[in-house]
């Protein structure tokens, strides 16, 4: 029940990201999504709670809920960009595409032969949906900050998948994934700053030629 609630909230935050026009609110939504997903392993494995899951949850919440938003807000502030998202695909179209993707994810999730436990019937579809939304945000938005957010949402999807499908993912592997995400966001934050300093903007559609 609680897992379902969290997963439905994750689906709603994804839709909100598709319709959101502000970079700041997008960053906050991704942070909220990260916190909710951080709590997910505790709820899924509520009967076999161990230090392992507690540590993983604490690490995820701290990283995705505090460190990433802080880094991204800092990048936003230093790059001094306007706060509009600037989409290639309009917000309403994005939401409609998102709904189609959600339906596809549920259809696909029902057919994938992965063994999930009884309470996890929503896990696979919402994981697929997060991965799709992440990809879509990377492709359909101009701002470099949005690419980082799309990457994070995609990572959240893979993480959801991991929580549901693999009961006992080795602790080290999960830590490694978290560390990868951290490094990626860190590097992208610096990259955004440098792109901005070189080109006076962070719009990726204008980065198709090198500055001589």
């Amino acid at each position, binding site marked *: 029940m609680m897992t379902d609630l969290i997963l*439905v909230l994750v689906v709603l935050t994804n839709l909100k990201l598709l319709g959101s026009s502000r970079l700041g609110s997008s960053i906050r939504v991704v942070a909220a999504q990260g916190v909710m997903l951080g709590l997910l392993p505790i709820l899924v494995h509520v009967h076999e709670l161990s230090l392992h899951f507690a540590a993983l949850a604490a690490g995820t919440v701290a990283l995705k809920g505090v460190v990433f938003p802080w880094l991204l807000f800092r990048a936003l502030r230093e790059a001094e960009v306007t706060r509009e998202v600037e989409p290639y695909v309009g917000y309403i179209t994005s939401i409609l595409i998102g709904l189609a993707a959600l339906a596809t994810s*549920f259809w696909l999730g029902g057919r994938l032969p992965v063994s999930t436990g009884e309470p996890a*019937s929503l896990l696979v579809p919402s994981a697929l949906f997060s991965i799709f939304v992440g990809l879509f945000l990377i492709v359909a938005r101009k701002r470099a900050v949005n690419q980082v957010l799309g990457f994070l949402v995609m990572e959240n999807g893979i993480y959801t998948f991991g929580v549901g499908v693999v009961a006992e993912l080795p602790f080290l592997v999960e830590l490694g994934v978290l560390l990868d995400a951290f490094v990626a966001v860190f590097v992208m934050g610096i990259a955004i700053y440098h792109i901005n300093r070189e080109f006076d903007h962070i719009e990726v559609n204008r980065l198709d030629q090198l500055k001589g």
Partner: protein
Amino acid sequence: MNAFSFIPLLLALVLSPLMLGVINRTKAFFAGRHGQPLLQTYFDLFKLLQKGVIYSRTTTWIFRAGPMIGLAAILTAALLMPLGKCPALLAFPADFLLFAGLLGLMRFFTVVAALDTGSSFEGMGASREVFFSALTEPALFIALATLVRETGRLSLSTMFGQASNAHWLHSGPVLGLVVLALVIVLLAENSRIPVDDPNTHLELTMIHEVMVLDHSGPDFAFILYTSALKLWLLGALALGVALPFSSGNPWLNLAMALGGMFGLAVAIGVIESVMARLRLRVVPQLLIGAGAVATVALILTLK
């Protein structure tokens, strides 16, 4: 059919103007004012009914028929809407389609009457009304389809009779999403605050109010009463989903439903007090969002 099933209809007819009064008092409380009397809408109706009517020479019979057809449509719709666990006077499979259709008929005649005045100003309001309702109707229908899937019943009365707290325990997210979508539909359809401000007479932002500017006297009383009933009926729809608890005693259920309705009125008043009206450009996004929320609920029930 027993005498008991007249009760939702009677309560809707008698108490719907009071709901507007409760909303206004809540807003007044938040603004630190004393506010108008709770019964103000009844006074307004009474005053308007005693006045004469003025018809512009450019209007035709459509303008005169509009308010009456609107009232007739909403009264018919009131026959179909149960109040909490108390079933409606009429119930038959797929009656919610008729309910939505009657709301559409009412809107159509309001719009046509507004266009009939020949005023470009009212035409603008009519255009906005049609545009926004084209976006709320999918949300309403998808939410109703979700309820049909969820309860396995095909009429509003049996749907709400079937719904119980077990549904909240078993599929809480679905019901929560449906309630959210229905509340947004309720706010939009009744031109409440995030979409339209019922108090403002600022020309460029009005939607519903601008269409009825040329109606006067009893005609305007009809329109006022129609919109009060519409608020009551859509409120009852959202409430039936939000509070499906049954106590076993019909009178107690009825009291609970009435309490819920006025709680809903207070909630609308609070929403109107703490939120600003959205920019007109953003309103379609909100309404599409309501449709998206309802679609997520539908997908969850289909899985």
